């Protein structure tokens, strides 16, 4: 229990009067990949967006309960959302590079946080982030070209590099491969496997195969409730709950 990174306790989320999440409690371990699976509209993305308070953007969204990151409560008015988000990076469903150069995309985070003093430092961070995202070799000769000129898979890795550049501890991925072809997906999955060594990763995915391939822990959501959570191997081979069983064998969802 000592290496628990995120501890959620009975999290409820409401969109206006509609309740989207019902008492989610979860324990996410450090330096592991946790996959959130479940049919569309089951609340897995909503839960993910609670962790870095991205739900704040939605005016009608109300979150209650408790989520602790490194034993610090984040569902509170006192939480410093900006530094929380620099600690918890996020990769979105659709690659969303800024319409700026590849270099500027990665450099943006470190620059606004004042992580660098000199141009050389900045260059080093950008290069190392791109390397960690496995993109450096492909783009090293054209760092000044717009990020939007890259292919979909490359754009997504650029977004991962952008998230890494501010030195986060946790990376949230919201269906990062849903807009990508199988080859690009495979590359990202490999990357996730490497990133696991340094980061705690939570990934929302629609693809059960992907969850099985990349994650150590899997959580199954259904209609806003967390049905089952456990070792990925166990969930996919011998789940305790029949709903989980039905979902992973493709009987619904």
């Amino acid at each position, binding site marked *: 229990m000592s290496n628990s990174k995120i501890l959620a306790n009975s999290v409820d989320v409401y969109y206006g009067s509609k309740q989207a999440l019902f008492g989610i409690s979860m324990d996410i371990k450090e330096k592991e990949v946790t996959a959130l699976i479940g049919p569309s509209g089951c609340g897995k993305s909503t839960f993910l967006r609670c962790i870095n308070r991205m739900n704040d953007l939605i*005016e009608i969204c109300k979150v209650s309960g408790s989520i602790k990151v490194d034993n610090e409560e984040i569902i509170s008015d006192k939480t410093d959302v*900006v530094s929380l988000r620099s600690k918890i*990076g996020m990769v979105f469903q659709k690659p969303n590079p*800024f*319409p700026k150069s590849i270099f500027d995309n990665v450099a943006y*985070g470190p620059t*606004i946080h004042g992580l660098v003093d000199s141009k050389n430092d900045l260059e080093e961070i950008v290069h190392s982030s791109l390397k960690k995202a496995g993109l450096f070799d492909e783009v090293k000769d054209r760092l000044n070209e717009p990020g939007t000129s890259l292919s979909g898979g490359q754009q997504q890795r650029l977004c991962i590099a952008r998230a890494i550049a501010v030195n986060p501890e946790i990376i949230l991925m919201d269906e990062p491969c849903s807009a990508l072809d199988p080859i690009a997906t495979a590359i990202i999955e490999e990357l996730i496997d490497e990133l696991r060594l340094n980061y705690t990763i939570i990934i929302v995915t629609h693809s059960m195969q992907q969850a099985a391939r990349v994650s150590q822990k899997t959580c199954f959501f259904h209609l806003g409730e967390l049905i089952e959570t456990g070792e990925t191997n166990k969930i996919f081979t011998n789940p305790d709950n029949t709903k989980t069983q039905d979902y992973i064998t493709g009987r619904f969802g």
Partner: protein
Amino acid sequence: MNNSVAKEKIVSLRKKRSLEDMRFKYYGFTAMCLSLAVLVFLLYTIFSKGYTAFQKTIVLLEVDYNQDVLKLTPDSSEEEMEKGKFFRVKKQAIENFFPDLSKSDIKLVKKLFSINADNEIKDYFLDNPEVINTKQQIWVTAHSDVDQLLKGNSRRDVPEDRRKLNDIQLSYVDQLVEENRVKQVFNNFFFTKADSRHPEIAGVAGSFMGSLFTLFTVFILSFPIAIGASVYLEEFAPKNRITELIEVNISNLAAVPSIVFGLLGLGVLLNVFGLPRSTPLVGGSVLALMTLPTIIIACRASLKAVPPSIKEGALAVGATKTQAVFHHVVPLALPGTLTGTIIGLAQALGETAPLIMIGMIAFIPNIPTGLTEPSAALPVQIYLWVESAERGFQEKSAAAIMVILIFLFMMNAIAVFLRNRFERKW
């Protein structure tokens, strides 16, 4: 049997449907042709009435820069030269040209020349002081009445008492024409001079500069305010009743008649704050208020068009809301906001009523050089000229309309260019 009846029905209905298609196509085509025809007719009328204003009539005079007549010496300083008696050399030149004129006829002949002729004779001398005591052939501007006669805008076959030029004057004009001492050249005065009581030396430069200064004021005032207001409303304002009320009223404001803004300028800017009357500063402020809603609406639309994923991306790396908005959303919306602003400015350029209210309708014979100097504006200038009885102003007003149309056309071209150049596709 049943089957074939159904088929026939389908076929006949199909014919009807395609006929409908055809009919609608022709309706649309006719509508387009009609509007184009009206436009072409409009442009043709303006052009055919106005193109002559780009030419002026000049007359060749032989001027004797005699030092005694001028009361100057070859050693005179420039200041003294400025005060030379150039009207006397002009008079002499006219007398020399028509040697047997009676005194009353001299007056009539002098009226064939523009009031500006003295200045032209003087300017030639100031540029070439060495011509003193020599005779020079100089082209001077003819009076508007001569100009209009030679352009065929005023007719000579009407009774004398309904003509600007009487029979004697006509005969002198004919004599000048016969001797090839009259020609038509490009009318530079139209572009270099401000308004004047004399049509031949009235130009749009003053009102053009006035409009430019006014638009500058509009831009300086409305662009930052519109950006600020629309960014706040779009990104920061809480979604509640008050915000909604403000939004609705901005749209309402866009529909307020412009003269109301003119009254506001008169009542508040001139009478309460005591700003100088008839100036681009006041005109621009009033027009800025008028165009503000238009620009805000355009700005908000272009801010809305920036995909939220960009803002989310910035927030997710830990940007504050302000950083996300000003580093990412606003720069991406800028081409759209600029386009909206230019369209707002184009609207302001053509606006007349509010400027009349704040006194920009005054007769201003010089070209303004600053925001606080009295000046006219192009649409008001057109209004003033159209109202004038003198025939010479009629072509001037049509020509000024051409100037304002070209001005508008260029502004819209810039807007289109900006949109195409910087527009992003997601």
